[in-house]
C-alpha cells in the first residue's frame, strides 16, 4: 500500500532539489558571464530566472496543501523549511540576475585595469551554496553548521573588493561607472553567501529541531 502522505513529502523534496539545481546553475552562469565577459550567457541567466520563480510558486502551493494535512515532527519541519529555502533560492536567483545584468553592461565596455579577488569570492559563495544544498540532501547538520562559519570569509572578501574599488575610483574617475558595476556584483555574491547561510540554518533546524538563528553561533565561531 502506498503511503500517500509520504509521497507528497517526497514530491516536495524533489521539487526543492530541482529548484536548487536551477539556482546553482544560474549562479554559476552569472559568475562565468561576469568573469569571462560573456554577453550571451548573461542574457540567458535572466531568462532562467523565470524558471526559478515558477519553482518557488509551485513549492509554496504544494507546501500549503501539505500543511492542511497536518504534518508532524520531521515532516512539519520539512514543509516549513521548504517554504523558507525556496524563498532563499528565489532570492539567490535574483542576485544571479543582478550579477548577469552587470556582466552584460561590463561586457560592452573596456575592462577595468584592477586586480580584484572576485573569482575567489565567487568560488567561496558558490561552494557555500553547494555545501548548504548538499547538507539538505544528506540531512547533515554538522555540514550545515560548517557552511555558516564560512560566511565571514565572504564578508571579508567583499570588504576588500569594496575598498580596492573605492581606491581605484578615486584615482580613475573615468572608471567609476564600471567600478560600480563590479561593486554591485560583489555585493550580490555576498548576499548569495548570506542566503546560503540561511539555508544552512534551516537545515540545522530540519535535522535537529534547533533554531540557531540570532544565537551568536556565527559571530562566536560556532561556539554558541
Amino acid at each position, binding site marked *: *500500500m*502506498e*503511503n*500517500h*502522505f509520504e509521497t507528497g513529502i517526497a514530491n516536495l523534496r524533489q521539487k526543492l532539489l530541482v529548484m536548487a539545481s536551477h539556482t546553482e546553475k544560474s549562479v554559476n552562469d552569472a559568475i562565468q558571464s561576469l568573469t569571462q565577459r560573456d554577453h550571451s550567457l548573461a542574457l540567458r541567466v535572466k531568462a532562467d530566472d523565470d524558471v526559478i520563480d515558477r519553482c518557488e510558486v509551485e513549492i509554496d502551493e504544494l507546501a*500549503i*496543501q501539505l500543511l*492542511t*494535512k*497536518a504534518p508532524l515532527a520531521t515532516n512539519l519541519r520539512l514543509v516549513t523549511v521548504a517554504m523558507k529555502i525556496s524563498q532563499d533560492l528565489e532570492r539567490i536567483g535574483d542576485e544571479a540576475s543582478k550579477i548577469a545584468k552587470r556582466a552584460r553592461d561590463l561586457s560592452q565596455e573596456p575592462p577595468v585595469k584592477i586586480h580584484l579577488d572576485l573569482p575567489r569570492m565567487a568560488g567561496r559563495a558558490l561552494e557555500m551554496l553547494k555545501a548548504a544544498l548538499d547538507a539538505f540532501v544528506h540531512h547533515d547538520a554538522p555540514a550545515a553548521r560548517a557552511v555558516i562559519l564560512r560566511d565571514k570569509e565572504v564578508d571579508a572578501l567583499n570588504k576588500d573588493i569594496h575598498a580596492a574599488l573605492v581606491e581605484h575610483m578615486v584615482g580613475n574617475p573615468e572608471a567609476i561607472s564600471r567600478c560600480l558595476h563590479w561593486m554591485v556584483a560583489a555585493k550580490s555574491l555576498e548576499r548569495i553567501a548570506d542566503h546560503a547561510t540561511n539555508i544552512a540554518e534551516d537545515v540545522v533546524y530540519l535535522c535537529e529541531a534547533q533554531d540557531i538563528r540570532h544565537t551568536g553561533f556565527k559571530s562566536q565561531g560556532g561556539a554558541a
Partner: protein
Amino acid sequence: MAEILTPKLTPPEASTATASIGAPLIEIEDVSLYYGASKALKNISLKLDEKVVTAFIGPSGCGKSTLLRCLNRMNDLIDNVRIDGAIKIGGHNIYDGNVDVIELRKRVGMVFQKSNPFPKSVYENVAYGLRLHGVKAKSDLDARIEECLRASALWDEVKDRLHSSALGLSGGQQQRLCIARAIAIKPEVILMDEPASALDPIATARIEDLILDLKKEFTIVIVTHNMQQAARISDQTAFFYIGELVEFGATGKIFTNPSQKRTEDYVSGRFG
C-alpha cells in the same frame, strides 16, 4: 448488520447506467429530509464525481451522516422519515418506486464507524457476500478473497490465519476486513461513516492510504470530524451546518480559502 447490504444481480436498467469518466456519478437534487415534523436536511443539491473521494464535514447534528445514509436508502429503516427531492446514481433516481433497495445497497456499500465483522473466520467474512452472489467454486472464492484482502492491504497480515476468527484481529485490521468485505461484491460507491474515528494514528494512516488506493476503482463518500483527515484523503469537500449545505468545492480550496465565513469559522475550529 453487514457493512455492505448485499444481494441480487444488477437489473438490466441499472447495469447500463454508468456515468462517463469525469461526469458526476451521484446527483443529489433538492433533497430535504424530515424526522417527523423536524427538517433535518434542507434542500440539498450536490453532484459527486465518479472515482473521487468526497468528504462530508460539519458539526454534530449538521446532517452529514443523514445525507450519507440517504445515498443507499439506509434511512428507510428509520420510522417517521420522509424524503423529498431526488438522488440519482448513474442517472437513475434511487428513490423511484421500482428500485430494488437490496440491489441498490449492493451498488452502494457502506463502512461504519465501529468495525463489525461477522463472528466468523477472516475467510468467511469476505466469502459471505460472494456466495450470496453465486460464486461457489472454491478456486474462484479463494482467488477473489485474496484479491479483496490485497486490495484492502490486509493480505500480508492475515494470509496465515485466514481460517481464524475475524474477532481476533486488531481494530484497524477488522475495519480493513470490513472494507474487503464491502468491495468483494464490486460496488460502484463506498460510503464511509467516520471509518477511522475509533482507531489509533497508525491504523488511521493505513485506512487513509487504503481509501486513496481504492478511489482508483470506487467512488467514495466519507463523513469525518477530522479536518486534517478530510484534507489528506478527499478531492472534494462539502460543509454542512444545521441541515444546510453551506459550501462545496475542491478540498484544497475549502481548507485554504473557503468562500463562506461559516466554513472558515468551522475549519478554523472557532465553532463546532
